[in-house]
């Protein structure tokens, strides 16, 4: 308790970020119990109700409760962000590590491809990939992961270049360990922290991209509640029911801001040189 209080005093921004993220995770996990209504329950009599005692955040064009849909929608946002970034870390991280370890022309070629992927605007890339494959949850995760592979490859590769010259790698070789074992058992732990810090920052981007794709209409199919598609509905009814577009936006902002704050805090903690600099 004392340590927690000290952490909050010394890292106010990171603490706020953790709080915001925890809020969203709690909402997503507890949605089945705390959501006042079924998120897909249509009640045509009560459509476009402004926020009131019965419906805290109002109702949408089908009379569905906005608060319940936001709580359930948190599940989709978190699910997509976590799985797509986890996939990007595994695939991109492996590509970067192997590329840096092998070196030479292979490295040059792989990194050229990664630079190309990196230079493409991620939203446009995600948009086109989902559009070509067809909009659903799996394809969206794939598209977002694809946009995030290159940065993870880069961040995993850089430290491997110097790590592979270290004595412990040479010792491993002398003991007859395979390259795979050296790479994944001995080199991997050394780069884990940097990759995970980037992971939290990229989760924020993934949440944004997911919401943007859903907003364009390329997300999870209706009637499943997602924050992006709720924004879309609110946008279409902006003249009749302005609260519809307001609340899901706040939910997106809370999660993205929280993830960014945690990511910034983690980066400061792992890289003292950057402390308070960015």
């Amino acid at each position: 308790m004392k340590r927690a209080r000290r952490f909050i005093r010394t890292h106010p921004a990171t603490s706020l970020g953790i709080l915001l993220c925890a809020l969203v995770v709690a909402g997503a996990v507890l949605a089945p119990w705390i959501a006042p209504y079924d998120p897909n329950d249509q009640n045509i009599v009560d459509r476009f109700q402004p926020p009131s005692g019965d419906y805290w955040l109002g109702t949408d064009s089908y009379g569905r409760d906005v608060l319940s849909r936001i709580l359930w929608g948190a599940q989709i946002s978190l699910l997509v962000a976590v799985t797509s970034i986890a996939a990007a870390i595994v695939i991109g991280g492996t590509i970067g590590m192997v590329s840096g370890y092998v070196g030479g022309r292979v490295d040059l070629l792989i990194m050229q491809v990664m630079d190309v992927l990196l230079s493409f605007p991620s939203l446009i890339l995600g948009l086109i990939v989902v559009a070509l494959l067809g909009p659903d949850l799996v394809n969206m995760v794939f598209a977002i992961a694809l946009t995030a592979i290159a940065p993870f490859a880069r961040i995993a590769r850089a430290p491997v270049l110097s790590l592979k010259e270290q004595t412990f790698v040479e010792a491993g070789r002398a003991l007859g360990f395979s390259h795979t074992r050296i790479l994944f058992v001995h080199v991997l732990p050394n780069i884990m922290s940097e990759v995970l810090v980037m992971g939290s920052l990229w989760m924020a981007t993934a949440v944004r991209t997911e919401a943007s794709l859903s907003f364009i209409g390329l997300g999870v199919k209706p009637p499943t509640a997602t924050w992006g598609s709720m924004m879309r509905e609110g946008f279409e009814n902006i003249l009749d029911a302005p609260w519809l577009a307001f609340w899901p936006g706040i939910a997106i902002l809370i999660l993205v801001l929280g993830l960014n704050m945690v990511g910034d805090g983690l980066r400061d903690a792992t890289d003292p040189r950057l402390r308070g600099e960015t």
Partner: protein
Amino acid sequence: MIYYILRRLLAAIPTLLAVLTLVFVLVRIVPGDPAIAILGDQATPAAVAALDHKLGLDKPMWQQYVDFLGNSLSGDFGQSMITGRPIISEVGAVIAYTANLTLAALLIGCIIGIPLGVWAALNRNRTIDYAARLVSLIGLSFPVFVSGIYMLLLFALHWHLFPVIGSAPAATVLDQLNRLVLPAATLGIVMSAYITRVTRSAMLAVLGEDYIRTARAKGVPWRRVVWHHALRNAAMPVVTVVGLYIGILIGNSVLTEIVFNRPGLGSIIVAALNNRDYTMLQGLMVIYCFLIVVVNLLTDLTYGLIDPRVQHG
């Protein structure tokens, strides 16, 4: 300078080829035959074969690739499958809107972001610094469609300062400017958030240098030290990041154009998505690639302009 430009131009060619290859692969890995996707499941084999032939899909893969590269590099991006018009003319009709929007946003980003970043760096770890960092973090956490909609809610619906959705063609220049304000501000906020962060950290790095101390020691006014000696040297990383984020800006302009119902690349791409207009999507991707390569080139050239050391490096 001429040599420098030529060198950068030559260096852009492999990147361009690689990006074009990526586009080619992306469009080809789609499961199923595009011709069937266009014509529907009920299409006769003859109709599918005819469309395959028209799209060049019956040729061997290597030939398709060579044709694609050749056409793209000679400025032929194909035709829309839906309207039959050349993609380049569809894009040409609206590109000015997207360009205006992006440039205005960039301008807003620099006007707000650079002074704010400098200010924050000069007041490191004071209230102003914390406030600037928090505000920029909030700014870059907003997905643009959310901030765009909030702009609409606040300025158009609540205060009635701007038209909600301007669908009628803008008659005068003033009209056009009026319509540009909210979308440009929406994108500009994101841009200024990024620029503030990078300017701040670049300035912090430069302010610790010896030449800053020397300049102060020989009595150069502080204002001149900051804006002339320090900022000029901090400009390199800022330009790099601005160049990188123009890609994000172009991507985000799609969302901004949807929210504000503006013509532009965004509206074309959304129409192509809805119509499953594969050739249009491929063409648009190629055009985006060209834009990005051009932006990277301009970024490199800007280095040469602001830092004479680069040209000889």
